[in-house]
């Protein structure tokens, strides 16, 4: 995959990966072994028909290849960019046992971009209207994927979003340089063309409750896909200092509110120019945050992680990109306090060195503090990216919805039915923070169950 050079891209918010050209894409497509029972499809949470779309590339039928993906995946241009393919389709590819696996993600992106750039989008036909109405709460990957499937079955679908723009984490969370917002907008427009209705600025649980969706607004089923949006902090001294951000706040300011274009856009963010910035965490959100800080001009960008690089949950490609761009990795390091000045601004993080002990319940080796290893890391800004929990707004006004600790919603693993008749839940609000594609897979599963419920009336 051609990329912007690291020393250039760490100064701008343009996309890092530049996409495959036609010739390279076709060469890559030729490598597909066209297995009789393809492992890649098994490896995909939404079951994209990989063999079929790759063979359409070989026949120069790119738009049809994109349409083939869209049968199972309503956001091909998005997943082609942000899926952890190495754990899914490409991880399952048999060629990967001896050589590098087929670059399925890059090929997916190639046909999706071809479709968007040439405007030859083949949208699937919807079944005739069923007269049933479905409300989807949240416009992130789970909600959008369910909306696409349900509208094709002939149901009237409304997606409610609390923020002013559609896309959930695709808009507020993932930065422009990894997922351009125009790509998300075009995919959302495709869903709109398929008949999905979108309503922004509606906080279900506050503006309208789930019960009101049924009894006053006439919906027949509700899917809660609100994600895991509540930021977790470290709960260490000094977290209220100015300059301490949750990754959600920092990324929302930069991505949704375009603070990187201040003063053209009004929302500000901490001025990172020439400053020492750190992120705490080792996942994709941590990488997105610290690489954004670099682009905002940070002089030193540190990634502070309490385990070693081998345990980092981030995609390999993101780790590689972050290092190339100049992020300094401080692994086996854990902040225990933040120190500030008399005006309440962050000055440093008290860090403790760690070593790896025996494996914990997650199967990863547990980090153990090394006595007497504390030191102060001078910092002007720090971003906390250590995970999220469920947003409780829907649950708190829907008392008959069963929850689990962490404000997650309990749902049947097979049907995603909740404890409340007519209400389903999918994505991070059920599982806790995961990936775009797993949420999309859950959205599809819920859509199938919702369709069955609306058709049969059986709960």
């Amino acid at each position: 995959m051609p990329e912007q050079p690291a020393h250039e891209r760490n100064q701008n918010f343009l996309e890092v990966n530049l996409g495959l050209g036609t010739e390279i894409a076709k060469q890559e497509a030729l490598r597909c072994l066209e297995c009789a029972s393809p492992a890649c499809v098994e490896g995909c949470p939404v079951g994209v028909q990989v063999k079929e779309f790759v063979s359409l590339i070989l026949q120069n039928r790119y738009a049809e290849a994109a349409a083939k993906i869209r049968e199972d995946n309503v956001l091909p241009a998005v997943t082609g960019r942000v899926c952890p393919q190495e754990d899914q389709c490409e991880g399952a590819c048999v060629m990967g046992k001896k050589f590098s696996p087929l670059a399925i993600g890059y090929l997916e992106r190639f046909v999706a971009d071809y479709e968007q750039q040439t405007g030859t989008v083949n949208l699937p036909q919807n079944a005739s209207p069923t007269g049933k109405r479905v409300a989807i709460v949240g416009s992130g990957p789970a909600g959008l994927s369910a909306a696409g499937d349900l509208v094709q079955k002939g149901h009237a679908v409304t997606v409610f979003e609390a923020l002013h723009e559609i896309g959930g984490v695709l808009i507020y969370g993932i930065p422009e340089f990894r997922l351009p917002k125009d790509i998300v907008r075009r995919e959302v427009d495709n869903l709109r063309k398929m008949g999905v209705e979108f309503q922004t600025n509606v906080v279900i649980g506050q503006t309208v409750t789930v019960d009101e969706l049924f009894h006053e607004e006439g919906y027949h089923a509700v899917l809660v896909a609100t994600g895991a949006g509540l930021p977790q902090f470290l709960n260490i001294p000094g977290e209220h200092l100015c300059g301490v951000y949750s990754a959600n706040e920092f990324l929302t300011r930069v991505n949704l509110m375009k603070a990187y274009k201040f003063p053209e856009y009004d929302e500000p963010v901490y001025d990172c120019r020439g400053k020492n910035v750190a992120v705490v965490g080792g996942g994709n959100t941590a990488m997105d945050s610290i690489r954004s800080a670099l682009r905002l001009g940070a002089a030193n960008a540190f990634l502070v992680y309490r385990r070693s690089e081998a345990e980092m949950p981030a995609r390999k490609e993101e780790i590689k990109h972050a290092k190339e761009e100049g992020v300094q990795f401080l692994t086996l390091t854990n902040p225990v306090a933040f120190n500030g000045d008399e005006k309440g601004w962050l000055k440093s993080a008290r860090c403790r060195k760690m070593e790896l002990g025996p494996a914990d319940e997650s199967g990863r080796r547990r980090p153990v503090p090394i006595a007497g290893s504390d030191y102060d890391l001078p910092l002007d800004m720090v971003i906390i990216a250590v995970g999220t929990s469920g947003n409780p707004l829907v649950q708190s006004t829907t008392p008959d919805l069963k929850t689990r600790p962490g404000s997650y919603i309990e749902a049947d693993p097979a049907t995603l039915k909740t404890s409340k008749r007519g209400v389903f839940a999918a994505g991070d609000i059920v599982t806790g923070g995961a990936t775009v594609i797993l949420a999309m897979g859950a959205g599809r599963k819920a859509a199938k169950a919702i369709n069955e419920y609306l058709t049969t009336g059986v709960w």
Partner: protein
Amino acid sequence: MYPIVERRELGKHVVLLRIRAPRIARKQKAGQFVIVRVHDHGERIPLTIAGSDADTITLVIQAIGKTTKLLCALSTGDTILDVVGPLGKPSEVHRYGTVVVIGGGVGTAIAYPTARAMKEAGNEVISIIGGRSRELVILEDEVRAVSNELIVTTDDGSHGRRGLVTNALQEMIDAGRKIDLVLAIGPIPMMKAVAETTRPHGIKTVVSLNPIMVDGTGMCGGCRVLVNGKSQFACVDGPEFDAHQVDFGVLVQRNAMYHHTEKEALRAFDHDPVPDLARAGHVCRLTEQYPEAGSR
């Protein structure tokens, strides 16, 4: 799009906007707020709801920073791009007995709906409203109408009693009047002073906090305040908290975090407000009636 159906000046740099937002109007309760984004380059700011009827909500805005100045410059018929709410928990309205409701400056607009709700719940409501001078005392008649007793104070004595709202409160306490609850909404120093006035007497005191917010739904954590030594999100856990447990120092520090950029944005807006007004779809009557004025 949320149309402005009424605009009224309540005092110096204080404007009341009535905005058509039927879903929010039907749902809102005293103490809750909305997040507003004026145009597609705008920031999201929280504003507490001052009242509603069937279709509209009322916001009272003091022109301080760029966005509040821009809002105050809009007129009837203009629209606001995004209004979302009602957010936060409503005021806890019960029958406490005697409730003292204190509003400082524009905070009076927010205290007013709670005062009314307290009265309707059967409380004896004593309201104290104040400002630095006469033109900063707002909604006096409205508050009087929902109070058993109203005391007005100004720092300079230009209206009502000379002094601070806390002087009036202290006098009531010294006179031995029974007070079951104090609710204070206004500038941070005022709310802190009220908390210190009631603390020695163990009078339950509630304040409505106004930290910097982005989404208003618990997603960003930017509005975290220190209450009883613990982090709380004002947008979902508040905005009202026990005044005796709030760390006002941290609130002041965090609210100053964007001081620099706020000043820069305001300077640019004061220099030339036209691009922002145009983005907000504002039609200037001056240029409509005197086209030559627009081509300066």
